[in-house]
């Protein structure tokens, strides 16, 4: 009986998580277009619903009813596989992400995470690494030069930036003496990691921008010079898969930044519920992503590689050495 209840709880949590993550791009696209509009002295969507709130729903219906076109010379199997490969890993990662300690519902303590892995951080990076396959397959299978160029760039970019990103969190692991995200947040109860790890945060966040393929590192899409990058040839629901994956990764990088460097659900000064604190911090980072997007131009490809290998990698290595010496 206990086993069934525990199993049912996990299934419920996973279903809830998937539902939330699938619906999350709706408000986020609205928000992004609103922020873009107001930064350019426009209004953004205004006509569908109150202040355009139903615009993402209209767009979703439009995407669902569009023709699902596969180019004539495309590799049909890989072409169909790529959106799923791009969509699944960001969802899988959220299994290891804690959103708070626990809440009591009807006298039962319910934890706000699906599982507390002792190697959660490793799991996160391992699964995020799979995401690059979706991009490579998508670009290769479409048999179009824009797609291929976009996927080549993305591939190089994601592999280069995963290294400093992985190194940047080692400082956090040294401080918390654990790779469990729950323990990392508990270790920040008094002082947030950003105080001890400013360089680590900088490297992680810049690499996170590149991983999420947002401006100033969105060379994969680069609508100015590549059409739309690796998803040039995608349409309809398959394109929607790539879009959803992009937004979930953006939220994921924000969540990871908050957990690793900004104290997770630990609040300061104002006593708010921990979950609310967590959501507020994540919302700030999501806003920061959008703010960056509509402020900065895009880096050139060689600049991108130079930043990854010549700046971020040495910085992250120095960060590990200094943290190791200071806290040994």
């Amino acid at each position: 009986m206990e086993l069934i209840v525990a199993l049912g709880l996990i299934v419920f949590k996973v279903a809830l998580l998937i539902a939330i993550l699938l619906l999350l791009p709706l408000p986020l696209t609205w928000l992004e277009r609103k922020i873009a509009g107001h930064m350019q002295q426009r209004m953004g969507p205004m006509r569908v619903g109150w202040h355009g709130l139903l615009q993402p729903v209209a767009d979703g219906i439009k995407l669902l009813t569009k023709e699902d076109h596969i180019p004539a010379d495309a590799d049909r199997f890989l072409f169909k596989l790529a959106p799923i490969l791009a969509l699944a890993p960001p969802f899988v990662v959220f299994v290891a992400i804690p959103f708070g300690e626990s809440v009591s519902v009807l006298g039962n303590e319910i934890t706000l995470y699906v599982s507390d892995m002792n190697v959660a951080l490793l799991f996160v990076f391992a699964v995020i690494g799979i995401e690059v396959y979706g991009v490579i397959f998508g670009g290769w299978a479409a048999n179009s030069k824009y797609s291929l160029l976009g996927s080549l760039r993305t591939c190089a970019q994601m592999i280069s930036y995963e290294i400093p990103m992985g190194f940047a969190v080692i400082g956090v692991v040294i401080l918390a003496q654990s790779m469990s995200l729950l323990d990392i947040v508990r270790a920040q109860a008094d002082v947030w990691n950003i105080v001890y790890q400013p360089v680590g945060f900088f490297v992680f966040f810049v690499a996170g921008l590149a991983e999420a393929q947002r401006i100033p590192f969105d060379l994969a899409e680069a609508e100015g010079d590549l059409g739309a990058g690796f998803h040039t040839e995608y349409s309809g629901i398959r394109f929607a898969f790539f879009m959803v994956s992009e937004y979930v990764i953006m939220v994921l990088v924000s969540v990871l930044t908050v957990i690793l460097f900004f104290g997770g659900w630990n609040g300061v000064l104002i006593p708010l519920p921990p979950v609310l604190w967590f959501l507020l911090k994540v919302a700030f980072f999501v806003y920061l992503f959008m703010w960056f997007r509509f402020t900065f131009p895009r880096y050139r490809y060689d600049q991108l590689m130079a930043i990854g290998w010549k700046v971020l990698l040495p910085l992250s290595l120095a960060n590990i050495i200094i943290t190791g010496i200071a806290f040994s």
Partner: protein
Amino acid sequence: MESGAAMSRAFDRIGTWIGWAFFADLASGLTLTFGYMFSRPVTMEYPDKEKWLPYSRYRGHHFLKRDAEGEIKCVACELCARICPCDCIEVVPYEDEKGNRRPAKFEIDTARCLFCGLCEDACPADAIALGQQYEFSSFSSRDLVIGRDDLLGKPGKATTGGGVVAARLNTKKDVLVETNEPQGYNWWRNIRRT
């Protein structure tokens, strides 16, 4: 003296480097966009909430004028029909009970009209002019052929213009202007332009 200038130049350069190291340029860009985000949008919410008032020189829909006795000014000389570059005016004259030459038929095909205003210039009786109305789209090009009596009822030249007034989209008829303020407000008043 010279070494002092060189020193200050060197300090300037070091200051620039420190600025770069701490992303002063990126930060200034971010503050700029943040400021714009809370500035007033330049968008005129045209059919939904607002509408632009044309200036008096605006060339909108044609209208026919009446004289002091309330009679139509047009003498049906057909000069407007002759000068019209797209041949969209058709005038048929008749003699009324006072013995004046008047138009029995005065039709303008606004679907073909290019709103050049030559008819207004050519008119010897100051009877036709291009007014302020600019919302007369239609689903049928037949509805765009406007007769004499409709032209007499069309709004005349604007007296003021350039302002923006409250409006509302009525899907049954057309855009209604709902304001008592004839001037409207100056659109550029609150807009950030730096």
